[in-house]
């Protein structure tokens, strides 16, 4: 089976401050989710491999790309950027959807967000809807960590069903 290309962050920040620990976990889960799709054919990544669940690895990557955009750009910064997928369209994969395209869009979105996170503080409040001023960046990142981890759990079983690969 093919190797994942994205390296896992070398070490989690066991004894660091809040900012380092939160950003460390976020980076870790972004890498784990990407690695779950890497090394697969496009056909394998489009497969609903654990029926009756309709989840696919490509759908998960597309979903988290839009979730990143939603929380970090629209909610946190009030950027006027449209959702990438309307009406849960991220789960309905076009016949020509590829792993490369999905991961390129994913890392492109993350690279825009990381420019902002590099100077943000955990007490920063959200400028956009919903509830401007009510969400701290700390809360948003912990939520992203739990959402990534839940979806990485989905990805674990999908990937294992597809080719037997387990682990981060």
């Amino acid at each position, binding site marked *: 089976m093919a190797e994942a290309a994205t390296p896992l962050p070398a070490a989690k920040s066991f004894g660091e401050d*809040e900012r380092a620990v939160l950003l460390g976990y976020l980076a870790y889960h972004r890498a784990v989710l990407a690695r779950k799709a890497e090394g697969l054919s496009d056909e394998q990544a489009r497969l609903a491999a654990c029926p009756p*669940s309709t989840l696919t690895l490509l759908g998960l990557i597309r979903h988290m790309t839009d979730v990143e955009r939603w929380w970090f750009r629209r909610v946190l910064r009030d950027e006027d950027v449209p959702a990438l997928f309307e009406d849960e369209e991220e789960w309905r994969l076009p016949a020509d959807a590829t792993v490369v395209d999905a991961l390129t869009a994913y890392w492109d979105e993350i690279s825009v967000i990381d420019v902002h996170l590099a100077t943000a503080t955990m007490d920063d409040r959200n400028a956009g809807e919903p509830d401007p001023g009510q969400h701290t960046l700390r809360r948003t990142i912990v939520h992203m960590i739990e959402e990534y*981890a839940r979806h990485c*759990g989905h*990805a674990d*079983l999908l990937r294992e069903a597809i080719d*037997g690969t387990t682990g981060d």
Partner: protein
Amino acid sequence: MPVPFEGPPDELRGLRMFLDEQRAALLRKFDGLTDAQATSRPTRSDFCMLTLVKHAAFVERRWFQLEIARRDIEGLWPPPDDRELKIEPEDTVESIRAFYEAIIAENREILDNVTDLDSVSASEVNRRWVLLHLIEELARHAGHADIIRESIDGIRGP
């Protein structure tokens, strides 16, 4: 995902609430299963719902005792055997739920006495890292549970 609190809490209160939400998510997936369903392995994974919840209980206990309460209890790490991943004849949905809920209750008490997220333990881990680790590990297992539960009886949801 529901927003688990109104307004911005401090760091510790936020972590508590997210941890409780993950515990609840995993236990919701366990609700209403028969013992036969809870021990079935409907995917290629070795996990069944019963071992997911049992494992979560062991994971919580060792991290809370060793690294949150910082009690030096022998036999918690490394695990002496793989019992937390095995189904024993006496295990039932009811007994494993009670086992996990008792550990959750003890761990909430431990956390009630925590104020310091920064100081590091002998193994150089601070409590913030441990709480986030538990949140991510329980959430990941809740993701496993989502797919296993849907495979068992079609039930989906948070």
